């Protein structure tokens, strides 16, 4: 269960980070978002990744926690990537 939470939080974090990039803003909204929103998204993204680390390390300790964290973040980044590709394809 703790893995699911870590995965979901890092998923949200990576999604926010992707939304903070102009290329993907263009892709999703057809325009660039304002610098303020972008900065906010970037902060939320990094905070999400840190929170995920805190959650898993708090439960499993540093040894196991870091290993799980690395797995969850890899998977989460991959899922965000795939979602963007799917979106791009459906629009095309």
């Amino acid at each position, binding site marked *: 269960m703790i893995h699911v939470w870590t995965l979901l939080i890092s998923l949200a974090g990576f999604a926010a980070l992707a939304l903070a990039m102009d290329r993907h803003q263009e892709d999703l909204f057809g325009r660039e978002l304002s610098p303020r929103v972008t900065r906010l998204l970037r902060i939320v993204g990094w905070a999400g990744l840190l929170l995920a680390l805190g959650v898993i390390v708090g439960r499993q300790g540093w040894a196991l926690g870091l*290993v799980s964290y690395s797995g969850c973040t890899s998977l989460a980044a991959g899922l965000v990537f795939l979602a963007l590709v799917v979106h791009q394809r459906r629009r095309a």
Partner: protein
Amino acid sequence: MTPAAKWSAAADAAKATEAAEATEATEAAKPARPAKPKPRGIRQTMSDLHTWSGLLAGWLLYAMFLTGTVSYFKEELSDWMRPEVAWQAQTDAGEVAQRVADHLGQVAAGTSQWSLTLPTERSNTASAFWRMPQATPGARRTFGSANFNPATGQEVKARDTLGGEFFYRFHFQFYYMPVIWGRWLAGFCAMFMLVAIVSGVITHKKIFVDFFTFRWGKGQRSWLDAHNALSVFGLPFHAMITYTGLVTLMALYMPWGDQAAYKSPAQRQELNMQVNAFLQPGKAAGVAAPLAPVDAMVREAQARWGKDQVGRVTVTNPGDSSARVAVTPGDGSRVSMSPQYLLFDGVSGKLIEVHDKVGPAAEVRGVMYALHLGRFSDLQLRWLYFIVSLAGTAMVGTGLVMWTVKRRQQLPDPQRPYFGFRLVERLNIAAIAGLSIAMAAYLWANRLLPTDLAARGAGEVNVFFGVWGATLLYAMARPARRAWIELLWAGAAVLALLPVLNALTTARPFWRSVAVGDWVFAGVDLMLWALALLHVMLALKAQRHKPRVKPARKAGPRAVERAKDDAVAGTGTGTGASAGTGTGTGPGPGVAGSATSAREGA
């Protein structure tokens, strides 16, 4: 592929590079630059290093990655490959240890050491190996091994197979060659991998900007984006797994340090105790004495570590008055493989020593070892290991394919590629599509070879290599594109039909496994279908891949210029052209810039 299609593929790929280069050129050309060619920068030399270290070891690395990936489920695979061994609920570890120990007394009579691995949630049987009594002093050490039914202690009568252990062993020592050679070869490949990872990171100048970028349908650009995504997302894992892979065999690769430091036998034994939980049998006293009850020792360990935390029981000189028993915790308890054990007197059954810590250096090695094997993982973490490791396999695969994608456009005559190109192209097909078929064939052989066949376990492995070799011959005989498509479809078919074969040849078809809650069997069946689906998707992708027909003129002038640059740089095959440093001979920044943005906007 028809000649026309081939040519347009080349033109298409050329266009993709051109777009990529144009991007680079715009960036590079912002400040006014002198017309003189610059010396090759760090990124370009690293790019070459990345290309060649990746290619030379690539085919073996792909096989090492894929067999290593499935080895995270080797226990499950081994169970699946011994369908005679019925699935059963867990029993008490102490009782199992005692039952099997009683039988080992007969099966391995006269041995100086036996070691028993207790069953776990993931493995149905207790397994043991023992030293064969030496016929003549100084002869080669040989070992016997067997699996035991935890409920009865009897030796399991199942078909002779190496099970998932074959993939695991192949992953770091290959087959058909002395173990030491295999491990050295694996070490060289791992070192190449490490070089490829580091040089790849240096080459990839836009890790953050392009983090989530994938440009669909742009030939080489798309391949590069996919390769980057697979590499970057799993980077912590890829770097860790490669480095720790080398650490697992470091004593073999670099023995000089401890050879110089530890000279006397006593020192060497001390070193051994720091890295190894296996007791080395001492000299037997020659006085017969029965082995004390093992179950009591296992219970004492359970009291110390927890009920499910006992992994292994090792006995030296059983039946002798010098007998020693070591009880070792299972792999699940901690992220380290450094030896921990309770040492008991084998005759009185008294606890002699608690070995629970090692020096810092040995502990570092223990942690790295454990990280590589991932045996501490619970089910979720094991799946994460599997998925990211599969991404690593795809990373190597896309890298291999990219070598040909990148060079196809530069072929002087696309219909008659030079020898090296054809070699790489065909080896790629066999190494990637062929390996899936060979691994599935190994499982087919497991179900189809007669159970009473002599040396059956080795027979299954011979089928694996036979089929793998056959896919290479097939890849050489067919046009490359057809070979990809046909072999991917074949892979999908043999994978998808395996659960069917299982249902026909065993009493444990998928629906029954689900009904009784046997998730090892059901899980392997499901996984085979999932992998079959993956192959269907790849096959469809390869089939639908229609190179867009574009006027060829775009490739013209730049290709000539590239050829000139290469002649100057002396790289011959044109590796520099796509490394993305733009040697300053391209069109002006304005033209290139607008071309790029037009394409990106499209």
